[in-house]
């Protein structure tokens, strides 16, 4: 049991280090066991240092920085324990446009090996998808599907949609 845990821990830690450095443009990240001698008696911390900053506890990072750390940890696990398909439901909600793009680009690369479904409200992320599915309801609470949605039909705020000002 202990050996099995250490095999998973060091593999996921290695993945996490690489993925976090990639998505944060050069930051350092690693996993740390509270009690390395007997891991089941302590917990596990995620340590991350965004580029250009001192190492901090993840609690002190910003909302978006935490999001990127958590996503890197998830990608690290997915690489170790591959599956036929993956779903991300608004995982970009804390991310700014640039980081939302970075996340989507990463998914795009992985989608050559497995199927990915990503729910998002942000064009920055949606533009990387091969296909787009629209989900809507006409004010009556009934879900309708638009199978082949065109990315340009998504109206974002800067396009004058009968501007309310």
């Amino acid at each position, binding site marked *: 049991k202990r050996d*099995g*845990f250490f*095999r*998973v*821990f060091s593999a*996921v830690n290695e993945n996490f280090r690489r993925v976090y450095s990639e998505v944060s443009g050069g930051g350092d990240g690693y996993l740390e066991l*509270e009690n390395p001698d007997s891991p*089941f008696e*302590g*917990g*596990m*911390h*995620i340590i991350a240092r965004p580029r250009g900053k001192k190492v901090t506890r993840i609690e002190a990072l910003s909302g978006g920085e*935490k*999001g990127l*750390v*958590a*996503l890197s940890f*998830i990608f690290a*696990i*997915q690489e170790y*324990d*591959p*599956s*036929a*398909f*993956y*779903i*991300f*439901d608004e*995982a970009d909600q804390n991310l700014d446009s640039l980081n939302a793009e970075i996340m989507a680009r990463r*998914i*795009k690369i992985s*989608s*050559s090996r497995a*199927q*990915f*479904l*990503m*729910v*998002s409200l942000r064009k920055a992320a*949606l533009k*990387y*998808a*091969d*296909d*787009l*599915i*629209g*989900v*809507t*309801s006409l004010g*009556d*609470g*009934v*879900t*309708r*599907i638009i*199978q082949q949605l065109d990315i340009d039909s*998504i109206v974002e705020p800067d396009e004058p949609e009968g501007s309310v000002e």
Partner: protein
Amino acid sequence: MYLKEVQMENFKSVKGQVNVRLNSGFTGITGPNGSGKSNITDAILFVIGPKSSKAIRAGNLLDLIWNGGEHGKPADKCRVTLVFDNTDRTMPIGYDEVHLTRVIKRSKENKQGYSSYFYINGNKSTLKEFEELLSYAGISSSGYNIVQQGDVTGIVKMGAVERRRILENIA
């Protein structure tokens, strides 16, 4: 192996029969708040066997059946079928397609108020058989292959012991 189609009948905010076809690569899903995006994820989780009804945001499984909307009548059952492309025979079944179907039907006989049925390509089955088949494809409801809405912030907020347990489950 990939998920070709999600067929939903009277499942949550889906009234009647609605199918979502998927490609094998990268599919984006978008739409207004409350339109039913996460309900599609719940439909998939419903079939692959969530550890609890809380994971599909339902007090109990009866909450999964279309409730009729503002003025309509609630449906008496809901059904979800996941259609997997099995041409690479990842699942040890001799068909190019594997249909996994789960049904919840209102029932006055049971004290919980419903009965639950499982089918593989139309033949009666059990959740356990579903889980065995899905494990060949690395699909499980407790793994990190499905990141539900809000899960990302959960990873940072959880305690150190809970976080260690994630890796233990994989081992």
